[in-house]
């Protein structure tokens, strides 16, 4: 399992465009990826769940990745997180 925190740099936060990019990046990978913001969490490929996190610019997200390709998923995610 890989866990890391990430501060959202984009002032617009996790809106449709970055969320779609995250889902597209993770689509070919099989590891489970959970993103948590405060009390709320969502599977990273679940667009509606991710939008429901309402992660604004400046907020910190906690990422948990677990699966056979978790290192690859972590690297890909770090490159695409806003």
């Amino acid at each position: 399992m890989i866990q890391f925190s990430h501060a959202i740099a984009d002032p617009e936060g996790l809106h449709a465009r970055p969320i779609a990019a995250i889902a597209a990046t993770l689509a070919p990978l099989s590891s489970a990826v959970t993103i948590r913001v405060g009390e709320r969490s969502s599977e990273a490929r679940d667009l509606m769940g991710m939008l429901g996190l309402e992660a604004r610019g400046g907020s910190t997200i906690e990422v948990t990745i677990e699966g056979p390709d978790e290192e690859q998923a972590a690297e890909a995610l770090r490159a695409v997180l806003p």
Partner: protein
Amino acid sequence: MGLFDMFKKKADAAPAGPASVTATEGADVVAAPVSGRIIKMTDVPDPVFSGEVVGKGCAIWPDEETVYAPVSGTVSVTMGHAVGITGDNGIEVLVHIGIDTVDMEGKGFTGYVKQGDKVKAGDPCIKMSKAAIAEAGHPDCVVCAVSNSAEFSDVALSVDAESTVAAGTAVLKVTK
């Protein structure tokens, strides 16, 4: 009236929404969220939508400014320029007003629903100002995406592309 009264008034005043429209409902139906000219998702002028990354569906170039719930269900997300509804029929729909309108930070949009609200297909959700979107320099096309498209074998237009539809008309057929 003091400064705090002003804030209080703002917080209390739930804007009175427009009347609901009659919408077609069904286990496999998504209704038009707005009146206007319907186009295929692949023709939306933005690669994230046209590439169906957000989901399959359609978009409508709006003739009017009120955007209605395309399915009956629960509001899962509201963002000023967008609303997501988890349908009672299992279809999750994201209605996204305009392209790159996130940078308007809600200005030009009036919301009538909040996260957790139960809505019926045809209930008003958001009113946009077409003038404000034009002023911000963005296309105002209203994207209607089935965000859980992967759970279905097909999401197809049930009316002709480029035809004019009224809000509430069945426009998508979703096949399990």
